[in-house]
């Protein structure tokens, strides 16, 4: 049985270039000594790759030549399948390892963080899921373009999607590269290449069908791993949560303070701003919204949200058990310490050490492979969302004005998937040693400011006009990107330019209301003929949004 303590001294070679404590939303911060190859992990990982490639082959044989097959898996998925895939799309390895690490270092704060990422899902159901399914076909821009003038609306939505996808992919790929470097001892650049290459193959050859099943399998694996670890942890404490918490409080340097809020919420303005980004941003993430077009009707769309919310709720609650289990079991064990007393491999490895401690190298291998599968599922969903925006919105509708044939559109989409993969791999390598902790927050801020307002307003507000939607969305995008650039996370931490001109890390508290206000003001002032016709066609859209009548 190969164990870290023995191997690390023998094989550890690379030393961290990025110091500092782990930020919860990023595996991107702390990297310690590179681990040796774990044979079980590699076997299980190769098994997952083999299965996922077989699925891709199967999906490719079933056909990915029509737009409906490529973008929406034929729109024939069951609600439960899609719900699992949404969960698989959303729960990243950064969450799994990062939240566990955050609970391990700060205790209760991990729960505050996890709740924030959960709260957006019910909002999707209450506000947009059913109309989205009834009005759209492949991308969320379909919804806004249903009655608004298609070219400007799709141009804006397509650009928003690509910006979100590229930032999110960089964050995921940098995290993935460092994680795989640690888990399998591979050099960073190979790790990014493997992840990027596999996601490119899944998306290009297997389209939405292959991506979906990769996500479903990953979701099931991730949940099984978390449940298994939680049961083993609780088994250590006679299945008493009280005993687990008591042991954690006794061992943690902060003692009883880990059971109460700590330093995560520093000031109310930042907390509310992040809250706004999370609660509305989830409903503006293109790769999540795109999944609603893979089911046949509104009823299945509802089931999807319920399954996804249930899954993610349970998963995040288990992370709390895992984090406290790590305090109680891993922190006291010298086997997981390096020479200077720090955690082997950095703080983000704590979930892996925990697997080793409660289940030996077999469980360690399994959890490592699950973490890898998790990365692949998330980046594939993102790549597909980016490819669909590039081909369906930007190429077929904006550039070719609807004159492109379906085969041509799908080919462009596949080419876009390859380009996005190559671009994000390149950027992933470029950003290896940058502090990119701001990127996930930025993605949610853009989604909440540039996408969510136009989706919601186009569904519920008769008087929204094309000019209103476009100006609101552009303002949301520019404000959120601009303010993040001026924020402490980028200005001071990444660019090292000193004190940041904008004091808050998340701009949503300003950019979301601004986007809504501008959309409203411009729409109200819009007296053009096209505005009148857009308003007049709201009735028909409203009927279809509510009933699904005449929907495809």
């Amino acid at each position: 049985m190969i164990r870290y303590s023995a191997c690390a001294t023998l094989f550890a070679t690379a030393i961290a270039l990025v110091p500092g404590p782990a930020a919860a939303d990023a595996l991107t911060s702390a990297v310690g000594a590179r681990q040796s190859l774990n044979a079980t992990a590699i076997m299980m990982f190769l098994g997952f790759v083999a299965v996922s490639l077989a699925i891709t082959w199967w999906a490719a044989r079933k056909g990915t030549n029509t737009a409906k097959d490529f973008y929406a898996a034929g729109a024939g998925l069951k609600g439960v399948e899609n719900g699992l895939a949404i969960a698989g799309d959303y729960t990243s390895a950064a969450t799994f390892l990062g939240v566990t690490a955050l609970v391990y270092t700060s205790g209760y704060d991990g729960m505050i963080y996890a709740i924030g990422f959960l709260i957006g899902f019910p909002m999707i159901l209450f506000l947009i899921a059913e109309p989205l399914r009834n009005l759209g076909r492949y991308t969320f821009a379909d919804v806004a373009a249903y009655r608004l003038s298609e070219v400007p609306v799709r141009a804006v939505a397509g650009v928003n999607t690509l910006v979100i996808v590229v930032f999110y992919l960089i964050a995921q790929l940098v995290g993935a590269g460092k994680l795989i470097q640690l888990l399998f001892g591979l050099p960073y650049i190979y790790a990014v290449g493997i992840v990027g290459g596999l996601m490119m193959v899944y998306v290009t050859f297997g389209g939405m069908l292959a991506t979906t099943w990769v996500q479903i399998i990953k979701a099931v694996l991730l949940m099984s791993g978390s449940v298994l670890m939680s049961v083993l942890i609780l088994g250590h404490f006679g299945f008493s949560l009280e005993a687990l918490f008591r042991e954690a409080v006794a061992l943690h340097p902060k003692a009883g303070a880990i059971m109460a809020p700590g330093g995560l919420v520093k000031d109310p303005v930042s907390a509310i701003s992040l809250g706004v980004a999370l609660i509305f941003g989830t409903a503006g993430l293109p790769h999540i919204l795109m999944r609603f077009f893979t089911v046949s009707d509104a009823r299945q769309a509802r089931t999807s949200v319920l399954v996804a919310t249930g899954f993610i709720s349970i998963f995040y609650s288990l992370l709390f058990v895992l984090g406290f289990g790590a305090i109680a079991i891993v922190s006291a064990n010298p086997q997981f310490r390096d020479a200077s007393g720090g955690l082997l491999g950095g703080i983000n490895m704590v979930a892996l050490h925990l697997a080793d401690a409660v289940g030996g190298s077999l469980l360690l291998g399994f959890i490592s492979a699950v973490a890898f599968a998790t990365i692949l599922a998330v980046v594939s969903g993102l790549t597909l969302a980016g490819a669909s925006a590039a081909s369906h919105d930007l190429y077929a509708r904006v550039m070719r004005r609807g004159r492109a044939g379906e085969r041509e559109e799908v080919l462009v989409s596949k080419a876009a998937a390859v380009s996005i993969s190559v671009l994000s791999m390149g950027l992933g390598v470029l950003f290896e040693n940058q502090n990119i902790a701001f990127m996930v927050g930025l993605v949610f801020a853009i989604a909440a400011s540039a996408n969510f307002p136009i989706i919601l307003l186009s569904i519920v507000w008769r008087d929204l006009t094309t000019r209103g939607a476009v100006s609101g969305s552009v303002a949301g995008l520019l404000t959120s990107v601009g303010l993040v650039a001026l924020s402490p996370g980028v200005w001071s931490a990444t660019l090292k330019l000193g004190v940041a001109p904008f004091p808050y890390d998340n701009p949503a508290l300003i950019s979301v209301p601004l986007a809504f206000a501008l959309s409203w003001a411009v729409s109200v002032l819009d007296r053009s003929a096209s505005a009148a016709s857009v308003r007049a066609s709201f009735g028909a859209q409203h009927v279809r949004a509510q009933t699904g009548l005449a929907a495809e």
Partner: protein
Amino acid sequence: MDLQAIQKNPTFRQLASERARLGVGMSIAMAAAYFAYIMTIAFWPSLLGHPLSSGTVITWGVLIGIGLIAFGLLLTALYVRRANSRFDQLNQLLLEDIR
């Protein structure tokens, strides 16, 4: 099919207004619960650090956090139940109406 005409149908108006009320009501409930939680953390963190009873290390914060997660899931389930019965039934009525 004349979609524009259907919007005057009383069954449709009933469906649209019931769905809007439920959706908006639940969104407000969810957002209010979440921001109340965040505000509590910002202004009265000690409130969440109180143990549930004198004999335990488990705090109100843990219970409330889990409660908030459960609340979101419960609202989601209630919405789906209501939509699967009432809204789909109204939709069915509407289809028969306009046939």
